[in-house]
């Protein structure tokens, strides 16, 4: 069953097309990763899906409700948490929970039950009278997610929820997302951390407002890059990169720390050719050359560069 169905969704701001004819579906209970660079159109798409921005054309069904025709029903049935934590810093933890519970019409026993739950997931039991402004970032983020789903929505949208938090907090936060998903909640999450994308059941990538890839992480890695990828480690990374880029059989290159990833255009090229080129002809000490399975990062850089070339 599909939680979200997006059909030909388009948003134009004057002459600029922020979201261009996008289609995708999100299944009930899955964690759906929405990837793209800053300004690619992620936030615009999400703002349309949560019913605060009207599409120029196209439509989407969110939880069965049309974002064009029933944005108010959409709002009742979703949760949303943005990169800016939407908590009131000048309210205490309990006051924030009380406020959002009030906004979603929770009271009595239900309210007590949800309040206890939010305090538990945010690790804030016995700290409910603390001012929100004095909480550390990771805790604040969990509290924000807790209050965003206080009304137990079937679908929750997270817009770059982990930007600016430390790795341990990010890990804890993803545990919480997994718990929600396990409980049947559909989670649509935007991120530009590619390690987080690995936790998603399905992923889409958009660039310049257009959908450029979709699938699970395994499919993305195998379907979009057919050519072999070599990972090379040398003494002189930058020099090696310059030498490699002059060769015809080198497609794309990128640097990962001390390593260079090279996508080859020619199947007949092997590790030996690289060693010959760098070590024998240019005197660079090659420590390691290895054929690898592409990472998501390789795939995305490849796809975005390809797409940008086409657009140009």
């Amino acid at each position, binding site marked *: 069953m599909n939680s979200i169905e997006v059909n030909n969704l388009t948003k134009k701001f004057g002459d600029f097309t922020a979201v261009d004819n996008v289609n995708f579906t999100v299944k009930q209970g899955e964690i759906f990763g929405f990837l793209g660079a800053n300004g690619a159109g992620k936030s615009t798409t999400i703002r349309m899906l949560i019913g*605060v*921005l009207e599409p120029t054309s196209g439509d989407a069904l969110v939880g069965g409700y049309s974002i064009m025709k029933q944005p108010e029903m959409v709002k009742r049935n979703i949760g949303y948490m*943005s990169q800016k934590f939407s908590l009131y810093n*000048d309210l205490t933890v309990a006051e924030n929970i*009380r406020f959002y519970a009030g*906004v979603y*019409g929770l*009271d009595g026993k239900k309210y007590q039950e949800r309040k206890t739950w939010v305090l538990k997931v945010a690790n804030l039991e016995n700290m409910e009278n603390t001012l929100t402004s004095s909480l550390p970032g990771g805790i604040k983020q969990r509290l924000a997610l807790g209050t965003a789903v206080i009304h137990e929505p079937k679908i929750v949208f997270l817009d770059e929820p982990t930007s600016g938090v430390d790795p341990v907090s990010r890990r804890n936060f993803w545990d919480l997302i997994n718990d929600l998903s396990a409980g049947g909640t559909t989670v649509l999450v935007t991120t530009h951390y590619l390690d987080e994308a690995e936790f998603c059941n399905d992923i889409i990538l958009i660039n310049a407002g257009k959908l450029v890839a979709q699938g699970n992480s395994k499919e993305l890695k195998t379907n979009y890059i057919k050519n072999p990828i070599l990972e090379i480690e040398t003494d002189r990374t930058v020099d090696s990169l310059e030498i490699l880029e002059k060769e015809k059989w080198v497609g794309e290159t990128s640097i990962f720390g001390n390593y260079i990833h090279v996508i080859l255009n020619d199947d007949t090229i092997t590790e030996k050719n690289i060693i010959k080129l760098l070590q024998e002809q240019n005197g660079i000490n090659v420590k390691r050359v290895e054929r690898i399975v592409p990472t998501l990062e390789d795939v995305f850089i490849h796809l975005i560069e390809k797409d940008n070339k086409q657009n140009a």
Partner: protein
Amino acid sequence: MLNRIIAIAKKELKQLSRDTRMLFIIFFFPVVLLIIFGYAINFDVKHIKIAVYDRDKSDYTREYVNGLISSEYFDLITYVQDESEIKRLLDEKIVQAVVVFPNDLSRKLLSKQEVKVQYLIDGVDGTTASAIQNYVNAATYSYSIKLTKEYLAVTGKNSYVPIDLQPRFWFNPELQSTKFLIPGLMGMILIVTAVISISLSIVREKERGTIEQINVSPLSSFEFILGKTIPYIFISLINATIVLVAGYILFGIVIQGSLFLLLFGTLTFLFAALGLGIFISTVADSQQVAFQAANVTSLLPSFMLSGFIFPIETMPAAIQALTNVTPAKFYVVILRAILLRGAGISAFWDQLIYLGIFGTVFITLAIIVDKRSKGKQ
């Protein structure tokens, strides 16, 4: 719906209770204004400092001077001994007026001739100078009448004054300017605190991004605005009460008219003022801009154009038309009618309609701007 509105109102009050800067603006500002306008700015001319150059030194001149200084309008500072001193006294602002009695005053009075008494008045401040002139005229007139009566009594005739003017000032018998100022002051305080507080409180949510969460929630704009407005209506009513109580204790201003009408008029005024504040919050993106806009649209016009200090009737026609930009103008009319005259609704029903129109226009504008900005972010 009611629960959601209450949730917002409660949240707003809690935030406000922790916002010392805002609390300061809301509650301290009125007190300061009251003190400044109640005490420092006083248009009443009393205790005019005079000097007397008495070249006659008779019972007549002493009696005349006693008549002046027995009222609270004149204080005798000094007697002048020669003419050159007069210039110095006026130049150095030691006195505001000098009375010069000619040396033949008593001789002329005894022989029933007309006497000319000279007054030298500091004319730099025209308002004060003309007030001094009026007091002097009145004092001299009554002393003249007294002399006439005495003269007629001596000659055995009855005194006869053909027309005796008996002015009575209604509503403000002592012509105290504070009585005239307090209603205007109350209008100014209420509009400034209402416009600033509501516009800042909405813009703060925009600035901090919390408005985004509100937009995604099932809260309608109407519920949001109403929930935000309710606490500020109560605060404004508290402020109004503070001003009225202070007006009574400090300046003896008693509410002559109906309390119910006063409340109704005040609520109508708040509707207009909060409408203006809500409109500002839709066009301003930062608290700084909102604060400036609120000041410019509420403080300045309510001070200059509401008839609070400067009477609208004496302004040029173009400026008179401009006075309609501030709802305080209409409220001041209502307040003066209720507070000073004890008038009923027939005296100001049209003002209530103007206020209603004002509020409706700005709330409609706010809705239009808000609708336009949606779909653009």
